[in-house]
């Protein structure tokens, strides 16, 4: 019987397992050192803040695995022998495989700062990191976070929920500066400051110092400032976790090198998710450290593993996040700086934390991307617009269709289109007529199984 072994029980590895099981009867074993069962890493912050308990973050009830004949093993893999197709666990136990999937995820970046291993200093990625954070925050009063990205914002929200003051060191001149354009970033920054974050831009960490008890007591910045603190969060990004693969004959670069089929250089060995580096022959290799892409990669790889070799095609880019109380969604490409050949229509609400940016090509006015903050959008509508190369005018006039906000929420499509008309007075764009009445009586769609 063919045996598939998956190292890593995150979204990527688990998606591979689930979809392989749907398509085949082969033995499936998932090995993870982190936890016994798959849980949603994205929910770690909510456990800390008391919104949920750990068991709530498990997408499948514990009996799901046995029911679907997916074996689970909580163990650490020490070595992969691709010649004899054998894994060695830290316990000494040996396991063989027919096909192997590496879904080892990410590791947090630590750039060799002095003192980065002191008690009270930590990164946040794994469940063990969460447990550590609980311990580290017991008596903490003032925290310093290093690196302005999404994990940093999550850590900030977690710390603030315990009444711990937060100082945020950001290397760029603005928060999440490598992703967000200026307009949106200002909105987020103001909102974060309202929640209590103290930003220090164009500031890097230089050194972490210990106090008499051996725990962190202060940090020194690149601008020479010393900030007293009793907790340091290193949120300066992640890199693929390739330690295990690097020890073996599997080719690695920054991540585990794979082709479009997510195959490594070794036959019957694959890599998926955060740890995979997809080789792009004429261009920049892709690493996709996102929940969504992990899921999509996993689904694709399952087809290849079960004999239907399929290229991983991500399709139209999308992402989302939440910054304290502001929800962010993006579809298509929106670059952080203005780009040649691409123009931008930006609208921001005068008072509320709501804004939208639509990027379009200068010549054809075909929409290439959208950022939306504080307005929920319908994914499949935007996907369709982008795939069909709809123009800015079309998108603006049909914007109502894309709204995904709850009922009774204030709608801004009229404000947006009026702002556009004001900015470019030679147009008088109007919203497409309301289909409210006809919608009441159109056939209902049922997708329930």
């Amino acid at each position, binding site marked *: 019987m063919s045996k598939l072994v998956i190292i890593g029980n995150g*979204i990527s590895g688990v998606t591979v397992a689930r979809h392989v099981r749907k398509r085949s009867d082969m033995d499936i074993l998932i090995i993870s050192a982190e936890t016994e069962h798959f849980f*949603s890493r*994205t*929910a770690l912050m*909510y456990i800390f*803040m*008391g*919104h*949920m308990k750990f068991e*709530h*973050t*498990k*997408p499948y*009830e514990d009996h799901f695995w046995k029911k679907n004949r997916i074996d689970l093993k909580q163990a650490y893999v020490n070595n992969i022998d691709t010649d004899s197709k054998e894994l060695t666990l830290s316990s000494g136990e040996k396991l063989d495989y027919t096909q192997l999937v590496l879904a080892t995820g990410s590791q947090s970046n630590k750039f060799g700062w002095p003192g980065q291993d002191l008690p009270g200093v930590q990164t946040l990625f794994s469940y063990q990191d969460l447990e550590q954070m609980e311990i580290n925050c017991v008596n903490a009063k003032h925290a310093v976070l290093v690196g302005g990205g999404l994990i940093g914002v999550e850590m900030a929200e977690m710390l603030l*929920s315990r*009444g711990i003051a937060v100082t945020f060191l950001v290397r760029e001149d603005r928060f999440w500066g490598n992703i967000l354009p200026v307009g949106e970033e200002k909105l987020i920054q103001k*909102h974060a400051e*309202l*929640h209590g974050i103290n930003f220090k831009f164009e500031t890097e960490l230089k050194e972490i110092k210990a106090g008499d008890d051996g725990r962190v007591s202060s940090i020194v910045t690149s601008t020479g400032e010393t900030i007293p603190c009793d907790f340091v969060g290193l949120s300066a990004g992640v890199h693929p976790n390739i330690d295990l693969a690097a020890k073996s004959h599997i080719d690695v670069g920054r991540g585990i090198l794979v082709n479009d089929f997510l195959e490594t250089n070794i036959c019957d060995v694959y890599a998926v998710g955060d740890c995979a580096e997809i080789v792009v022959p004429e261009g920049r290799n892709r690493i996709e450290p996102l*929940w*969504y892409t992990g899921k999509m990669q996993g689904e694709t790889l399952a087809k290849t593993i079960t004999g239907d070799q399929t290229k991983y095609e991500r399709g139209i880019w999308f992402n989302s996040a939440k910054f*304290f*109380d502001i*929800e962010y*969604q993006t579809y298509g490409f929106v670059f952080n700086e*203005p780009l*040649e*050949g691409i123009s931008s229509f930006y609208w921001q609400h005068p008072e509320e934390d709501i804004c939208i940016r639509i990027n379009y090509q200068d010549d*054809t006015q075909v929409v290439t991307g959208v950022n939306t903050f504080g307005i*929920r*959008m319908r*994914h499949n*509508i935007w996907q*369709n617009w982008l795939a069909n*190369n*709809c*123009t*800015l*005018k*079309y998108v*603006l006039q049909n914007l109502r*269709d894309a709204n*995904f*906000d*709850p*009922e*009774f*929420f*204030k709608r801004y499509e009229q404000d947006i289109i009026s702002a556009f008309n004001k900015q*470019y007075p*030679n*147009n008088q764009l109007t919203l497409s007529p309301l289909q409210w009445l006809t919608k*009441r009586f*159109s056939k*209902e*769609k*049922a*997708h*329930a*199984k």
Partner: protein
Amino acid sequence: MQNNNIAWVSPVRKSGLAFFIIGFFVFVGMLFSNQYTLTEQTLSSSVNNSTHRQLIQPHLSEFMDKTVSNKFSFIEGVRGTFTRYNDTVYDRYHLSTNDLDAILKEVNTLGYYDLNILKHVFNTQDDYAAYKIKKLSDYTGWLAGQQGKSIDEISQVLNEKSAEINTNVVGEKRIDSYATGQYLYAIVKSASSGTVANNTGIFFIFSVLLATIGALMYIIPEKFAAPAGIKNNNVFKNSATNGGFIGMLVMTFLVLVYIALYFFPEYIVEWVSLVDPLFVVLNGNGASSWSIYGFIYTLAIVVMGVRMFIKYRHSNYHIARTGSIIFFQSCFAFLLPELLIKLNQPSTDLKNMWPLDYDFFDAWNLDSLSSSGDIGMFMLVWGITLFVIGVPVFTYFFGKRWYCSWVCGCGGLAETAGDPYRHLSNKSVSAWRLERVVIHSVLVLCIIMTSTALYTYFTGVKTIAGIDTYSLRSAYGFFISALFSGIIGTGFYPKLGSRVWCRFGCPLAAYIGLIQRYKSRFRITTNGSQCISCGNCSTYCEMGIDVRAYAQRGEDIVRASCVGCGVCSSVCPRGVLKLENGSTDVVVDQSKKNETANIVQIISAEELKSLKK
């Protein structure tokens, strides 16, 4: 960190909590701070049936004109009197063999049967004697004075007749348990004589009013303490909201209150007297034990509704829905029924319908409504129209939520006072399997119970297949209404979540749910790809639906149990869920998609970039 101008928030909230706790303890404490004095006058006003009053009065002599402070000993003493009376009623009133022997002895002496003998034999000058004399006179009077009857003949007649008389003794002399309950309650209420009885106004201020003000002082400042957004910090760490110690205390209190309301209302007469003046104004009569329940229930929905307004001030859906609940509860469930009493009209909660209103088809209700003029007729027709036509139509267009989270009183309490507990619902598959069996069984039971009651109403036949239809009805009332809906449904909020009744028991929910599942435009649509499986939606679903399972697959949620509260959509951090009636077609108009607007570029991207440097 936080700006200083909200420094007032914490002290105000702490004081509010203190006020609430004080008010609560005064509320509970007053039950044990009253005195009771039973007098001739209070007895006659409480036991309004003169026959019963005459029967029981002699037995209550030990309580007469004495002031008792211990509520328990007073109530149980009076209750015990009634019980002992009933237990011994047969002993006292039946014609025993000794009685008959004594009569026959006299007959022997006299030579014939005469009614005067009875006066000799039963000579105790009390009701027992009077009863026996009267009964024998009625039943055997025809034998009196007749000469030439043998002792055996007379003995036979007496035995036969006394057997007949004895079978009626309990029926005629016993005070039935319903009446006993009524009298006991009335006695305790009117005998209420001490501290609390004489100072109800002050007790009202320091219990209800103080607690309400305290609660609002605790709730309202949150509006100023932080920006609007999801407020679930520490829900699973606080023992009040995570099923821990404080939650258990609250649960114990609620369960005791429900038991008292349903089965021992005599223990809460002080609470009733608190709101008596208010109800006299509202309905012209005064308050009953259910009045205090309705009052506190409505107050809870209003105060906790304010909490919802503040907690979800960023969501117009919740504001609208909570407003609707408050309106329907205060107007339809509370004020209007009282007003109707005052206007001498039949009184009902117009938004309550069968099968939730399980006694709608009871004989007394049908009779009352059909004989109370236009308004009664309207209520009868309205009640039937609501569930025959209203439910299918509204559910088709809006889903179950039009009733269950926007109108219903049970739902209203669950969404407001139950909000701190909604996440305690059981999410497991086994709970769902149990839910489907139990809730549909209750619906079937209710249909059977109602049809048999209607059958009895129209044909007069009281038993079907050996089962008395009335006892079916009262069993339903006890198990389903009192135990399930009341005690477990609401009492167990802090442990089992806010919707146990709605999810496992309510037959109306079962009915509406079937329509929602199979023939409704309502669904929760999903931006499936954006789902990060965090689990917030499933955790905060009060009906225990595994929302995440649908969301992560990009499937619409069309579930019978979904009440459309909208909390899953709110707590989702990625905007994956939307409650809607129908769904939006994804159609691109190919003829229009290439239309361009008139856009004049003023500066190029490069120039823009260099401007920013």
